[in-house]
Each structure stands twice: as C-alpha cells, then as structure tokens.
C-alpha cells in the first residue's frame, strides 16, 4: 500500500507526521512488515526525534544550520543561498526513514516521533508512506 500526504510548511519548520504514518500503517492492514517514509524533495528531510519539547525542534534546526550555514559562496547559484544550503542539509540528513511494523503497529520508542524537516519554506510539500508485508 502506498499513501501520499501533502503538507504546507513554514520557514525551516519541523512538522510532526507521526500520527499520519501510524494511520497509514493501520489502514494497510499489514501485521508484520516494513514501513518506508519518503519525501521526494531536495531541500527537505525526514528524521526521528523526541516530540516532548518543541524547543528541541528549534535546537535541531539551529544545529543543522550551524553545521551547514546559509552562505553566499556556494557553487550552486541557480536558485538561492538558502536553497543551496538546503540541498546539502537534505543530502546529509536523508529523505527516507524505515520502520518495523509488528502487531499492526509501528515499532517506535516511547519518546520517538517522525518529523518532516523543512530547510526552505514556506513551501507546498508531500511525502509518501509505503507499507510492505513480510
């Protein structure tokens, strides 16, 4: 089963998509298998992090920006400096996540949430969830 979700992001927003992914797993009816979450963008990423404190999302983006600052001497100048930095961030962070499905549920830790990371924005974005039995 493949399910597509659409998002409207804000600037450098971190969006919790855990509930949507869980729903997709439930809808699939798969009891044991794998769940792939994938975004088809080059300036956005996916990650798993703690959902308890929203300030942690800002820390995450702040530290990503510290490691890959938006600067004006990127060689990729077709779009904007933020876009060029976004490409690097997205490549390093990755655009897909894989989870174990057991007893028809995602095998996530108690503090773990699934998040869509925007490295540009505001943008219209999408991501896919594929659940495979096995």
């Amino acid at each position, binding site marked *: 089963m493949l399910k597509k979700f659409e998002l409207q992001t804000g600037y450098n927003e971190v969006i919790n998509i855990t509930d949507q992914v869980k729903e997709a797993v439930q809808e699939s009816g798969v009891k044991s298998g794998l769940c792939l979450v994938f975004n088809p963008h080059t300036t956005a990423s996916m990650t798993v992090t703690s959902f308890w404190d929203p300030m942690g999302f800002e820390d995450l983006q702040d530290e990503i920006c510290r490691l890959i600052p938006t600067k*004006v*001497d*990127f060689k990729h*100048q*077709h779009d*904007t400096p*933020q876009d060029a930095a976004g490409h690097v961030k997205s490549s390093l962070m990755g655009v897909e996540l894989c989870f174990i499905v057991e007893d028809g549920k995602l095998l996530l830790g108690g503090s773990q949430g699934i998040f869509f990371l925007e490295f*540009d924005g*505001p943008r*219209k974005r999408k991501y896919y969830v594929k659940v495979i039995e096995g």
Partner: protein
Amino acid sequence: MNTTYDCAMRRQVMSLPQLLNEQYADLEPKIRTVLSFQEIYSCQRIILTGCGDSWAAAMAMKPAFEQLTGLKTEAIPALELSRFTPEKLLKGSAYSPLVIVVSNSGGAARLAEAVLRCNRYGAFTLAITGKPESPLGIHAKRILPLEVPRFESAPGTRSYMVALLALFLLAIRMGEVRARYTMDAAGAYRRELKGLGQKLESSLPQMDEAVRQIAASWKDFPAFDYIGAGSDYATAWYGHAKMLEATGRYAMHINSEEWFHLNCFIKEIEQLGTIVVAHTENAGLSRTKEMLAAAVRMGRKLMVVTDGTAEELGIEAPCIQVPKTDSPYAAPLMLFVPLCLLAADLMAMLGEKQCRGQEGPWEFCKGAAGLKNSEIIVV
C-alpha cells in the same frame, strides 16, 4: 484587426506577444547567472539610469527594484549621473552601488560616460545591452547580453518591452536571492511574465480598434498631453516620446499632481489630445482620478489607458483597457502598448517618417549621430 493603416511601428506592436514569449525564454536563465549570490548580497544601493526609452524603462521599474529587493533605489537620468551626481553617492563597497544601465544599442555617448564615471568612483556597473561591443558594453564591468531579433526600424517599441522585462526579471532575481520572499513567490512572478504574451495577444485586437477610433478623430491635433503618477508617469513619459518620434507633433509629459499646477492651463483644448495612464493599483490613483474629473469637466479630449473601467475611475471618457496583471510591477509591460498604437496609427494616417526621416533640418540625427557624437567628459 485594423489593416486600414499600417506602418513598421504598428507591425512592431503586433509582434509584441511573440517577442514577450521569446524574450522571457532567453532572459530568465541569463538573469539567474548575471550576478552571483555574493554580488547580490553585497549590493546596498541601486541606481537605474538611461536616456530616451531606457530612461522611461528605468523610471517604470524603479518601484519593482525598491519593493522587491528592499534596497534604496534611485532612477537618475544619464546626464545627471554623468555630470551632477555627487561622487560620494557613487562610492561604496565592492559591489555597491549597483548601477544598472539599459540600452539595446549601447551607442549613446552619455551612457558610456555615466558608466565610466561610476567605474572611476568604485560603483559596480551592469549594462543590459544588445551590443556588448558598443561603448556602453566595453566600459561596463558586467554585461547582460540582449538578443532582440531584428525588425523593421520604427520608434522603439520592441526594445522598450525587452528593457522592461529584463529589469523586472532582475529585480525578481535580486529579491529572491536576498530571501525577501520564497522561491515559490519568485516563481509566481516569473510565471505571470511567461503568460503575459498570451494575455496581450488576446486583448490586442480590442485595444487596436479602440485606439484606431481615437486616432482617427485626433488626426489633425497639433499637440498631446501625457499624464500619470509613479510608474504610470514613466509610461506617460514613454508615450510622449513615441508621439514626438512618430509624428513630430508637440507632446508633453507631466505627473498627475503637477498637471494641476501647469498643464491644466493649456489653451485650445479642443485641439489637444490628453492621454492619461491610470493603473488601478497605482498609489497615486486618487490624484489621477481628480485630474481626470477636472479634465472631463474642462471638455478635454481624453484617452485613458487603464486596467480598469471608466466606472471604476468614475469618469465618462474613452478607456483603453489593458490586461490586468497579478503583480502591479508587471503593469508597465501592458500599459505602454496602447500608447505605441496611438503614435503608430497617427504616424500611418499622416504618412510621417520616423524622426522626420533624418532629413533636412534633422539630418544631424542620421544614424543616431546626435546621441553618439558627443564629447565624453568624465568628471
């Protein structure tokens, strides 16, 4: 489509929709690379300059640069920039001020002089020109090459549209890179420009017919008064220039405020064509509407160029409606068209030669010699 009268200028107007499409495709990728991120971020001030049509284009696109880039932007005529602008205003950091000069021919001596002077004091000069080998192209620190396909010679119509388009695309690009808005928002500005050719094509026949009727009744008028506010004034300025070039008849330009101080006192109004540019999102529209109401009461012969209607403007006068644009900064690309048609129709009806054929008393203008052959003095 009106075929009763024809001339090269009319044919230039009719070629604009296709040209707009072609030029967008040519310019958009070039403008992405003409200035680097570093250069765009280093810029703290912008000076737009020009003479003739390029001066009108500079005035028309000043609001786009100001609003989209967020940078202080001045439009300074070439002679002012060459001889009168204080040196301290031309000094800055590595890529600032950015001096943008548009000239398809690149041959005007005053523009080359302005670029030489700006270079001397450290400004960063960008020439938008179809002739990189021209004096302007040679002296500018950076060139954005234009490739406007050759056409029958006529008072500049195609080149003006390309100048507006190039400037607007550059403003969009600078604002985008400076993160003044998102790439999606920049994309929306660009998509609108990409579709403008089609919009213009579908409204040209209606504009053409409406302007032809006015031109027929104004054929013997000896003088014309062009009025507008802000970027509409720039369009009015351009319109007066076309009337002079096309017909040689007296033409004036004035903004909607100054009209009440000066041009409202012109006599023999039954023989005076009054052309008003009134974009519905223009910040000076209320004053232009007051001007229009006064002109109607006076019995002035009016032609109003607008994206609205006579009802919206609160007047009873012939309105030539141009397509509405999503962005007000794109409006000058539409509003100038009826002004070209008016000049072109009168030119055709009167059998006038462009710039008097550059014969007799006008022989000194041959080959644009009046613009090219001028002593260059860098002060």
